[in-house]
C-alpha cells in the first residue's frame, strides 16, 4: 500500500491519514491528506482493501454461475449488477428477452435506484451531522428490501435477474405490495426535503463545496448524478436505451452549480423520477406472460417440462454441468446505475466459461475526481465531497 512518504513527500505540511477505518469513508477507503492548517493541499486515495478478484473468479465459472458474484460488487445495487451482466451475456448470445420480463427488470432496478439513493441520503446526512434523516431513510429502504424479499427470497443479494429473463414468477399480490410503497413514498421524500432542502446548516455544509467544472468532470470520465449536477444531461437510459427504457416517459434532472448541494438535489429528483418509471412499468406489465426466453440449452426449462419431456431434462442437465457456449467475440454493455455508467465487457472465446469479464464500476472511476474536488478545501469538506461522489467500496475494489 502507499506509504505516507511516497505519496506526499517531505515538506512543512502535515500529513493526515484518513481511513481505511473511518466512518465517513463508507467502507474501507483510505485517503492520505497533506494539510496546511485545516486546508487540504493534496489528497491521495489509496484503494484495494476490499479487492476480492471478482473478475478473475468469473473466468473460472460458467456464464450462469457468475451472476451470484455480480451481486457482491456494488452491494447497494445488486439488481443493477445482475442486469448489466445478463444484458451483456444476452448480447453475446443474441438472445431476445420477453417484454414482460424487460418491464419487470426496469421496475426492479428503479426500486433499487430509490433504495440506493436512500442509503446515500441517509448516510450523507449522518456525515453532515443530521441523524434523524438517516433513520427515516432506512425505514423506507426497509420497505423496498421487503419487496425484494417477496420477489426473490433475498433482501440484498437477490440474483433475481437471470440470463434470458428472471429467476422466479413474481409473488401473488405483488401489485398491492409495490402500489402501497408507491403511494407512501412521495410524501416521504417531501419529508426529507422539509428536513434538508431549506435547512441553513445543510446549505452551509454543501453549497459551493466540491465544485468542479463540467469539462473537467467529462475529462475525468465522471458519469451519473455528479455529471448531471454540472449541467450535462447524460443518462444511459435515454442515450443508449436498454431493456425497453425508450418506452418510458421520465425526465433527466440536471443542475448547473456542480457542487455538493446540486448533487443532493439531483439525487432527490431522481428518486421521484424513478417512482414515475415504476408506476409506468406496473401499468405495462401484463398478468400473464413469459418471464423467460424460450431458449433451450441456455435458459433452464420449466420444472413440469423437465419431469415429462426427455429433451428438457437433457438441457437442464447440460446447463448445470457444462453450461452453454456463446460464439467468440466481445461486447460492452453500459447501463445507468445509481452512481453512473456501469459497464460490462465480456470477451468470449467460444467456450462455456468467459475469457474475460470486466466491470467498469462508476464508483471506481468517479472517485478519481476526488483529489481535484478537495484541493484547497477544509478537511470537513473532504467528508462532504467523498459523500456526494457516492462510492461503494465493493465496486471500487471489486
Amino acid at each position, binding site marked *: *500500500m*502507499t506509504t505516507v512518504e511516497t505519496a506526499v513527500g517531505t515538506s512543512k505540511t502535515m500529513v493526515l491519514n484518513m481511513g481505511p477505518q473511518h466512518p465517513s469513508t463508507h467502507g474501507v477507503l483510505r485517503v492520505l491528506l497533506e494539510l496546511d492548517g485545516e486546508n487540504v493541499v493534496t489528497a491521495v486515495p489509496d*484503494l*484495494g482493501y476490499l*479487492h476480492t*478478484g471478482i*473478475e*478473475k*473468479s468469473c*473466468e*473460472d465459472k460458467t456464464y450462469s454461475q457468475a451472476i451470484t458474484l455480480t451481486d457482491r460488487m456494488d452491494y447497494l445495487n445488486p439488481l443493477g449488477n445482475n442486469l448489466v451482466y445478463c444484458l451483456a451475456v444476452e*448480447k*453475446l448470445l*443474441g438472445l*431476445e428477452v420477453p417484454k414482460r420480463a424487460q418491464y419487470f427488470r426496469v421496475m426492479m432496478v428503479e426500486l433499487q435506484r430509490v433504495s440506493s439513493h436512500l442509503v446515500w441520503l441517509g448516510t450523507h446526512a449522518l456525515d453532515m451531522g443530521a441523524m434523524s434523516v438517516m433513520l427515516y431513510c432506512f425505514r423506507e429502504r426497509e420497505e423496498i428490501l421487503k419487496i425484494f424479499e417477496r420477489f426473490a427470497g433475498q433482501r440484498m443479494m437477490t440474483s433475481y435477474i437471470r440470463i434470458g429473463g428472471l429467476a422466479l414468477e413474481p409473488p401473488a399480490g405483488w401489485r398491492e405490495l409495490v402500489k402501497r410503497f408507491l403511494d407512501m413514498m412521495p410524501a416521504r421524500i417531501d419529508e426529507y426535503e422539509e428536513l434538508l432542502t431549506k435547512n441553513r446548516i445543510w446549505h452551509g455544509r454543501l453549497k459551493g463545496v466540491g465544485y468542479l467544472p463540467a469539462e473537467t468532470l*467529462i*475529462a*475525468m*470520465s*465522471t*458519469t451519473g448524478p455528479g455529471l448531471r449536477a454540472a449541467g*450535462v444531461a*447524460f443518462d444511459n437510459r435515454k*442515450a*443508449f*436505451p*436498454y431493456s425497453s427504457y*425508450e418506452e418510458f416517459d421520465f425526465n433527466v434532472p440536471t443542475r448547473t452549480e456542480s457542487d455538493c448541494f446540486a448533487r443532493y438535489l439531483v439525487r432527490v429528483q431522481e428518486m421521484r423520477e424513478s417512482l414515475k418509471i415504476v408506476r409506468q412499468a406496473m401499468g405495462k406489465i401484463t398478468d400473464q406472460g413469459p418471464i423467460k426466453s424460450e431458449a433451450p440449452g441456455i435458459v433452464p426449462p420449466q420444472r413440469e417440462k423437465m419431469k415429462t419431456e426427455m429433451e428438457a431434462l437433457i438441457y437442464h442437465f447440460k446447463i448445470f454441468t457444462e453450461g452453454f457456449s456463446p460464439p467468440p*467475440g*466481445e*461486447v*460492452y454493455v*453500459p447501463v445507468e446505475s445509481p452512481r453512473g*455508467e456501469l*459497464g460490462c*465487457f465480456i*470477451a468470449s472465446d467460444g467456450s462455456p466459461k468467459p*475469457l*474475460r469479464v*470486466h466491470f*467498469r464500476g462508476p464508483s*471506481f*472511476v468517479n*472517485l*478519481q475526481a476526488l483529489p481535484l474536488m478537495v484541493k484547497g478545501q477544509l478537511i470537513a469538506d473532504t467528508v462532504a465531497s467523498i459523500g456526494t461522489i457516492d462510492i461503494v467500496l465493493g465496486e471500487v*475494489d*471489486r
Partner: protein
Amino acid sequence: MPQPAHANASAVIDRLRTWKPESVSQVIEYRGETTVVVPHKLLLATAEQCKQDPELNFNQLSDATCVDRFPNEPRFELNYQLLSIPRLARIRLRTSVSGQQPVIDSLEPLWPGANWLEREIFDLFGIRFEGHTDLRRILLPDEFEGAPLRRDFPVEGKR
C-alpha cells in the same frame, strides 16, 4: 434491442481512413458494436484524432481494459471504449501488445480519466504505459508479485 450506439460507426471509420489510411488496420462488427483495430504505434495518434476532430468529438474515455489471449502472441489486447457525449456515439479502439515487451503509450495526456483505468491494467496485467504520470499498483499491495489477471496465473493464487 435498439442499438443507436454504433449506428454511425462507418462514418467514423471513413473519417479516420481519410485522415491516415494506416490507422485502421481492421474493422470488426459484432452484435452491432464496432471495434477499430489500430496498430500498436499509432494508438495515441488515432485516439487523439478521435478526440480532437470536431466531427468525431469523442470527449470521454468510458473504459479501458485488457484481454489476455495466452498462449497466442501478441497475447494482450487492449480495448478502449470511447464515448462522445455531444453526439451520443460510442466506438471501441483495440490494439495488440506483445507478451515479451508489454509496453504501450498512455492515453492519460488526452483523457486524464485514463489514469486509474491504466493503473488497474498495469496492476492486474503487468502492462506498462509510457507517459503515465503515476504508474503504481492500485488494487493490490505494492509487494505483490505477478499479474493476477493473466491467464497463466492460477485462479486459486500462487502458494
